[in-house]
């Protein structure tokens, strides 16, 4: 096609407009750079700024992020805590490779993991509870359930809501005959580990090859993250899934009461989760083997049975990290940890974010752990 004069005119106008855009972009970029430089000049870095690097479990991520911002302010910006979620597995890998100063993990170290990273301390920093959340028309919160029944549902053996095993737990309640849709996590997750460990504990048919952060699910649909599972449950009628307590509270989901070893049906809450944590009679030493520590099916009349600690993992001798660890950083890390586990510090922010505060027995244990941390053989907290 031959170019008409109008075409040429349009082309010319087009290229002029392009030049205008390019100039505008350059001007904006220059202004941004100038602002950044000015801000840097006017607000010089405080003396001896320390950045503590952490990574790991996503479950405590909101809490640690809150701590990071509050602690940063309290120290006048001197101590920055940079915690990246990415999963417990990623955190354990990072602390084993010594690329972070501390890690977060929902599961205690397995013996093989302990052997790969000797000298790691377990410091429980908060407690998680996993709820059985459902969406059934006509049912409100508080359906009575047991670990055995939940196991049957997640194995695909109980497929309708009016199954005799469910109605037997809920006398007087009219249950629909609709088909149950099971929702589980599709990503690997500490929440899945806690949930499958509990089902293994309660249901003989749930064998040990179905326990882990990710498993080969017998039935159900998968969704990524607590938010994903919560979203699926809320949009699919007659569904049931497992979700962290914080998510069910924040999105007002309906959750089941679970029967604990004392025989009581207990609603998940901050109080019933803290009761589970407080019921543990003895703990290993912080540097000991925590692999068997569990607050699943904890004793106590009001203990919620599906709960677990989540841990910060820190080297007892901080020079293990290598040259990136300095005296100032080691001191800052120990001070931060001490602040995190106390009511006067980090724990006061737990409840508002729906994390159960640590019971006194656990705080005492954490104090013992933090006091034992050294740098080049010198203790850092007296």
């Amino acid at each position, binding site marked *: *096609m031959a170019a008409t004069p109008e075409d040429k005119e349009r082309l*010319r106008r087009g290229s002029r407009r392009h030049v205008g855009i390019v100039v505008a972009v350059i001007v904006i970029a220059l202004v941004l750079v100038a602002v950044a430089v000015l801000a840097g000049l006017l607000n010089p870095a405080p003396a001896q700024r320390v950045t503590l690097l952490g990574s790991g479990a996503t479950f405590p991520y909101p809490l640690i992020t809150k701590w990071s911002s509050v602690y940063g302010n309290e120290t006048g910006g001197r101590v920055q805590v940079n915690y990246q979620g990415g999963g417990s597995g990623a955190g354990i890998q990072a602390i084993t490779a010594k690329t972070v100063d501390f890690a977060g993990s929902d599961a205690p170290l397995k013996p093989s993991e302990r052997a790969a990273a000797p000298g790691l301390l377990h410091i429980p920093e908060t407690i998680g509870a996993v709820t059985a959340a459902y969406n059934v028309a006509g049912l409100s919160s508080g359906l009575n359930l047991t670990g055995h029944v939940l196991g049957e549902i997640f194995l695909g053996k109980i497929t309708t809501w009016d199954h005799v095993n469910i109605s037997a737990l809920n006398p007087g309640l009219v249950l629909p005959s609709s088909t149950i849709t099971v929702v589980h996590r599709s990503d690997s997750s500490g929440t899945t580990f806690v949930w499958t460990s509990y089902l293994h504990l309660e249901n003989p048919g749930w064998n040990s090859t179905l326990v882990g952060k990710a498993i*080969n699910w017998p039935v*159900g649909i*998968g969704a*990524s993250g607590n938010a994903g599972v919560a979203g699926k449950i809320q949009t699919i009628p007659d569904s049931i899934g497992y979700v962290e307590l914080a998510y069910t509270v924040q999105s007002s989901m309906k959750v089941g009461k679970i029967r604990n070893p004392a025989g009581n049906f207990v609603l998940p809450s901050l109080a019933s989760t803290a009761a589970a944590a407080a019921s543990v009679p003895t703990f290993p030493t912080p540097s000991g083997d925590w692999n068997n520590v569990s607050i699943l099916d904890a004793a106590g009349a009001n203990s919620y049975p599906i709960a677990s600690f989540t841990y910060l993992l820190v080297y007892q001798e901080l020079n293990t990290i290598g040259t990136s660890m300095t005296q100032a950083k080691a001191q800052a890390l120990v001070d931060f940890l001490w602040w995190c586990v106390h009511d006067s510090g980090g724990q006061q922010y737990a409840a508002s974010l729906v994390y159960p505060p640590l019971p006194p027995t656990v705080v005492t244990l954490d104090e013992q752990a933090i006091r034992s941390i050294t740098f080049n053989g010198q203790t850092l907290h007296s």
Partner: protein
Amino acid sequence: MHPFRKSQDFGRPMSAETLGDPLFQWFSTVVAFGVIGLLILITVILSLAAQESIRTFGLGFLSGNVWNPVPPLVFGSVPFVYGTLVTSALALLFGVPISLGIAIFLSELSPPWLRIPLTYIVELLAAVPSVVYGLWGIFVLGPVMRVSVEPVVQDIFGFLPIFQGNAIGTDKFTAGVILAIMIIPTISAVSREALLAVPDNQREAALSLGATRWETTRVAVLRYARAGIFGAVILGLGRAVGETMAVTMTIGNRNAISISLFDQGQTIASWIANNFLNATDPLELSALIELGLVLMLMSLLINIFARLMIGRVLRRGEGAA
């Protein structure tokens, strides 16, 4: 006048301009070969990282249909390959006719004042991040499919095995619809270019023979542009095969091979996205990387197949003409 061009300078050698040609040539060459090098590098690195899984499972990886990350570890790729193929095929089935309709309207039928705004709006679909499509899929499309679409389809076609089962709006069907919406901008934009490139004398010739508008479009325009349209479809397919977030949020993430489109499934990309971050076992990590390699090979095969098809279509066209 172009602001950068000095019209009186023609023929006068200038140092910057004499340097410009070789520099430009070198730059283009290096960039072009860099892309080839990058592709080779990716393949090599993936193959190396997948060694452990390849050695452990061999061909069993390509025929296995179980993915068990708890000891005893067993990893097979069939459910993911199957899910990828099914959702991508659905996406093309829904997406291509709509995209072609859009492209034909924009190039042949639309009044000029509507053309530009409509083009912009269609292309805007491509600018929506896929996680947004995913969220929309969970909260809007999924429920609509469950309540209004799937029961109707089941009422009419329920006797077909592909429409049986408990339809809950989170399944391969919904994922296919989301993918179709996501590939529409790509296919329609590229097809529109192909249609616009059809010379006007093609249309004039058809019209002068008494063809109606539809006949003109079908015989003179679509036939002429079919290679370009085919290329557009393949570009869209490429996006559908590799799409991750929106699929994983709508497909239901179940590692199962089932004939019904109302059952949940899993695609290669969504499975890798779901599990890569937290895979700590070296064998599982290696198996996930091998899965990536499988996805790459699949894309490669699709592309080669497409090239062959284009070649055949073009040759047949010449023979007929």
